[in-house]
């Protein structure tokens, strides 16, 4: 039996993306049709039964989020789709936006109906500028066909979608920073409380979900929450789009049911297909730069929210970046840290100053001038960032570092002793490639 399970990616590559006709022929908008005849609370119940967890990275149960917003009796409410897919190694939202935009539109429209919202916003990252026109074309054709806009499918319900974009700051993927950006403000995270469900876009109650989360909604409507849940594990309903990249034989986006092991994902011929070269796999990075690194001893962990969490790992965005033995962990972490130095918004101390100092310390390891104290300082900083940063960006910035400090301590020690097992650090320096 195939390990790939195309529930939400079934149309990708098979239909003409902005064609309502194609989409409907493939079963599209039947979820919306069904939803419009259901009371909102029943829709929320289906989402709860499905145990759909937010696909943006935090994995917050979507049903609970919807329930909380539903209980707030303050209008207008807004629906926002976070399509600021900025997590390195993550390109699954791009697939949906590009190949099946009407599914995302349908999901957002069902959400709009649940909360009696009349405007939805999709924040498509600046780097996906090319996609924005095509997505607009999809919106326009949905409006023309009566699935979106005024009096949807002859009902009294009207809902309009607007595309918004940023200038490419990673931090705008943080929901509150994204709302600031939509409002035309500087994209820096907001002080919470108040939470976005209460005081969100334009100070109004707001639902923010990821592209993939919305894309799951039509399927849940079609097949029901229970059926959807049955594809995954007891705590993680349905399927997940994973993005394989790095030193892996078959890089790409795959839709898999929750519950396969990490070994399946990375080594199975149908999926990752093992290392891309001759060298053995050393570690892998889950969920993007903000996620934890995983190691060979953890390969038999099932890929689902709770099991990964129990091992200190996480699903995150669905990215799986594989590194083989040619990669030096210090060198790798320097690159990760550089990313966060570049993307930190700079407002809070741990993230602004901490990442800078982490980089300086890692560089000492790379130069062969580090000591045991520097290892302890890295531990101190990674704890500080995780526990004391203002927003998710800073809290996650040192996740890879802390998992590597714990699991690859020997490699740090080797650098203290003047050896780079991968042969990257000191050779680079000697040949002046730095």
């Amino acid at each position, binding site marked *: 039996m195939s390990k790939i399970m195309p529930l939400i990616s079934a149309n990708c590559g098979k239909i003409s993306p902005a064609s309502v006709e194609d989409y409907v022929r493939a079963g599209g908008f039947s979820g919306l049709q069904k939803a419009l005849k259901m009371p909102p609370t029943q829709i929320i119940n289906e989402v709860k039964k499905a145990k759909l967890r937010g696909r943006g990275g935090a994995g917050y149960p979507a049903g609970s989020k919807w329930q909380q917003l539903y209980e707030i009796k303050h209008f207008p409410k807004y629906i926002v789709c976070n399509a600021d897919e900025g997590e390195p190694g993550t390109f699954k939202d791009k697939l949906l936006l590009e190949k099946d935009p009407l599914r995302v539109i349908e999901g957002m429209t069902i959400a709009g109906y649940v909360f009696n919202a009349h405007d939805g916003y999709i924040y498509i990252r600046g780097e996906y500028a090319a996609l924005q026109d095509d997505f607009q074309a999809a919106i326009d054709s949905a409006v023309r066909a009566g699935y979106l806009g005024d009096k949807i499918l002859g009902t009294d319900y009207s809902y309009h979608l607007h595309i918004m974009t940023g200038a490419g700051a990673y931090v705008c993927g943080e929901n509150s920073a994204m709302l600031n950006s939509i409002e035309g403000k500087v994209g820096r995270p907001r*002080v919470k409380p108040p939470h976005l469900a209460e005081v969100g876009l334009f100070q109004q109650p707001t639902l923010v979900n990821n592209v993939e989360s919305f894309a799951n909604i039509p399927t849940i409507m079609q097949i029901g929450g229970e059926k959807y849940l049955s594809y995954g594990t007891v705590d993680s309903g349905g399927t997940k789009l994973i993005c394989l990249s790095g030193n892996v034989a078959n890089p790409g986006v795959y839709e898999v049911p929750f519950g396969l092991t990490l070994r399946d994902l990375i080594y199975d011929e149908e999926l990752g297909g093992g290392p891309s070269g001759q060298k053995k796999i050393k570690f892998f990075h889950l969920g993007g730069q903000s996620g934890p690194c995983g190691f060979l001893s953890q390969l038999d962990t099932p890929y689902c929210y709770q099991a990964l969490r129990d091992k200190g790992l996480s699903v995150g965005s669905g990215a799986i970046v594989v590194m083989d033995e040619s990669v030096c962990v210090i060198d790798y972490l320097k690159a990760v840290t550089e990313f966060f130095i570049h993307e930190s918004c700079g*407002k809070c101390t741990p993230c602004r100053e901490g990442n800078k100092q982490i980089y300086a310390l890692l560089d000492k390891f790379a130069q062969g001038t580090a000591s045991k*104290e520097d290892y302890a300082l890295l531990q101190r900083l990674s704890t500080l960032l*995780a526990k004391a940063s*203002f927003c998710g960006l800073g*809290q996650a910035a040192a996740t890879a570092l802390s998992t590597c400090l714990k699991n690859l301590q020997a490699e740090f020690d080797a650098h203290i002793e003047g050896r780079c097992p991968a042969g990257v650090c000191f050779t680079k320096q000697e040949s002046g490639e730095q």
Partner: protein
Amino acid sequence: MMQNFAKVKKKVTVTIDGVQVTVPEDTTILEAAKKAGVIIPTLCHHPDLKPRATCRVCIVEVKGQRRFQTACNTPVGEGNEIFTNTKAVREARKTVLELILADHPQDCLKCVRNQKCELQKLAYDYQIREIPFTVSAKNLPLEDSNPAIVRDMNKCIKCGRCVEVCQEVQQVAAINTAHRSEEFCISTAFEEKLADSPCVYCGQCVAVCPVGALTEKNDTARVWAALDNPELHVVVQTAPAVRVALGEEFGMPPGSITTGKMVAALKRLGFAKVFDTNFTADLTILEEGQELLQRLQEGGTLPMITSCSPGWINYIEKFYPELLPHVSTCKSPQQMFGALAKTYYAQKANLAAEKIFVVSIMPCTAKKYECTRPEMRSSGYQDVDVVLTTRELAQMIKEASLDVDTLPEAEYDAPLGLSTGAAVIFGASGGVMEAALRTVYEVVTKQDLKDVDFKMVRGLEGIKEATVDLAGTKVKIAVANGLGNAKVLLEKIKAGECDYQFIEIMACPGGCIGGGGQPFGTTVAIKKKRLEALYEIDQGSEVRKSHENPAVTQLYDEFLKKILDHEAHELLHTYYSARKD
């Protein structure tokens, strides 16, 4: 009205370090901890501003929460178990401080905020002896292109208090946060010079800065040089709000009245004469009162708005130039004083104007700019030569090693040192209005005003309104302090929805007692103390109406009535003009 029945807040009970406290819901952990005897350290938090929770110094542990919570903005929840002094908390706070210090100059001894720096205090409290991280110097140039405020961004810790006060309280928005990550900084738009920005020099940013990044331009050296120059006759004037704040610089409790000590110290510093801006505050009331009556009787532009606060003048010139005809033509008391010192006083003392050097002690940074304005040279020279803030005066007193405690009190010199209770309350929001009402009432009604207290215009509230009955003529007045509040009234005027006749506006929240040049650490609580002290001085004054100041009467008789009308007018009045791009 509805708000009188606002629902009573629920109480929640929490334990903080094992101590049980009950507080209203929505109380922050920071405030609740005070009830448990813990003052949680803060750096980016200022009690008068909205919390920003960015420095992360105030972190605490809450049982059941994976991450630390910031005490400044996190409300307590029923049953919370909060720990403010665990090993993890202490270590994390120390690491945060070390990170901030690694990005900060290490030259406390040479810093203007030495011993008055909130970062330095925390570094001391947390026993930071060495920085384990890479310490980097930024070597950014000083921004001192204007006469009032110096910005040293090398020292900035990016707490954002200045942005908060400039954007939200004053609504001037001359500065904002810019860039990201390492480059994240506080900046004017496009890094332009402050002089080219919308900045009005109110100095509220300086007042809330926890470190030495923002200061007034220090002019003490120029004053020492003048005092050391035997050719010069150096006189000084002191603004009303300085006398109730200066004591804080010498360890006295806020609200201490230090008039006598201050005058004595100034004499010991070597000033030939110690005069009082209150004298020209009384004069302002006569001139401005006259102007108001004239506008009321002759159909002039109303409402008339006061012109004492130079930050406010800068603001209207830059933001609402179309409303300038509303502003009284009276110069500020400081500038009236300067003009008279180099004419009237020069004549009386038989001195050449060029030999007189006028120093002002002001609670204000905008006054430093005001004295350099081209309009302020009606004596033929720059009328006021140097303006020092309350803080700079304290510095000079310290530099002169004067023991303020034992210094015997002294009195102002005549005639420019004589004043009334009406003048001293100029230092608080509503004071100019109250002083004006005391005089205008008697002029209009020709009756003796029995109760001189106009309490409805007193206090720290942002906008105050009242209607005053002048023997049948109703005069509608308003008082605003803080430019954000001024903006509300100006918008009403613009929309034609304003039926006031007279408005007092002070740029700084609370008026001059909360000025940008006052001792560091000013809070609403401290402003209240200073304010009470001013009204106490007024209460105890023999004369409490400006038009009863005999020295002012003498000035009119001896001088102003004898020179040409337009000359007198030029000394005391001016016109401002648009400075909007």
